[in-house]
């Protein structure tokens, strides 16, 4: 009846004349109906840019309203329940692997670096371990904003004259250092934003950087 005045028989109309509760109900539904009629909906509005979500998280984490480890992964991981579960298991396994081996694991810690933000990201740490056979750089970055492309880990000489890539980096991970690389010379840890353009050189767009300090 709220939508179509032809609906409803004589008894129903008579009832509405007498019953205040039903009449009020009908008035509310008529109002909802007429507002819905006027508000011919647009198509579903497009999603906001991911950068706004990053700003929400940043503001809340900076103000202490949200812990970094509370932050949800971006949407793709949640689009399938199994993907979410698999991602969660992956995180747990990775975290466990890192906890078991980082820093003490196979090798002894020989140097550490605090990576200072050069862009809107949070501080990160890197630990260099050596066991006589191989050296590894374990990095632990907090949530890095989603970008078009990926983040890459580098070792640089302090004057920037030399650099070597240790591969893409995401969150927490361990990166083997090639035996030919002298970490006394290549002593600066750097993480850059890299576009997926097939160009293997450094984009010069660094987000985190810090020198390795030997631990004694």
């Amino acid at each position, binding site marked *: 009846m709220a939508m179509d005045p*032809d609906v409803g028989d004589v008894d129903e109309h008579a009832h509405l004349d007498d019953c205040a509760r039903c009449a009020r109900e009908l008035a509310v539904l008529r109002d*909802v109906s007429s507002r819905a009629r006027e*508000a*011919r909906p647009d198509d*579903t*509005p497009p999603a906001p840019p991911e950068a706004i979500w990053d700003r*929400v998280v940043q*503001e809340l984490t900076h103000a202490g309203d*949200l812990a970094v480890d*509370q932050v949800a992964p971006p949407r793709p991981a949640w689009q399938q329940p199994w993907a979410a579960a698999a991602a969660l298991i992956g995180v747990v396994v990775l975290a466990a692997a890192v906890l078991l081996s980082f820093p003490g694991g196979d090798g002894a810690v020989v140097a550490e670096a605090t990576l200072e933000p050069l862009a809107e990201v949070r501080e990160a740490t890197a630990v260099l371990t050596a066991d006589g056979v191989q050296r590894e750089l374990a990095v632990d970055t907090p949530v890095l904003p989603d970008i078009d492309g990926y983040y890459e880990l580098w070792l640089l000489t302090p004057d920037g004259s030399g650099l070597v890539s240790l591969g893409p980096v995401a969150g927490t991970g361990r990166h083997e250092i090639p035996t030919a690389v002298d970490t006394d010379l290549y002593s600066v840890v750097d993480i850059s934003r890299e576009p997926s353009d097939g160009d293997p050189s450094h984009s010069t767009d660094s987000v985190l950087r810090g020198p390795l300090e030997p631990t004694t």
Partner: protein
Amino acid sequence: MAERVRRLSSVDESGLLRSRTPLEADVESRFGSDDAAVLRAAFDLCGGAVLAYGRRLLPSNEDAEDLVQQVFVTAWRQRHRYDPGRASLLSWLLGIARHKAIDRLRRLERERRVVVEDRGRVVDEAGRTADRLLVAEALSWLRPEQQLVLELAFYDDLTHQQIADKLGMPLGTVKSHARRGLQRLRRFLDTPTMEAS
């Protein structure tokens, strides 16, 4: 008309207008929790509507994006105040957005960066924009047959009898889809004004 029925019949096959993750489906009942994944789901579900609202009311896209940020930051801080029994999540978020947008307009006016000639018109516009976004959201949550009946009644101006004839559905079925659909729309549109500091 033909186009609308075609669009809706494709909805019929999939059963949902747009796919929702399990988390999005019960984001309202879980919104008061401390799980930040729920905030993310709310952002995925409602962020676009909040942004569209901001673009409608505020002078620049940058203002609109700032509004989205403010709304979700405030929503997280005040999540314990959200009552799914009283309002849909989107109406609650748009209530916050309305306050923030009006504050922002006042500040811009004080800084003489905009001139609001007719405050009443801005408030009306805010209400109409919110209604449009809420109706779109509400329709998308309805069962496809309820959605089809309401759209034919609202936007093609058909009577219940005409809808019944058109769809080959008994009149009583059309009435019950219309009634249930309208009750569910009511939850989105007939909501108390949300106060958010």
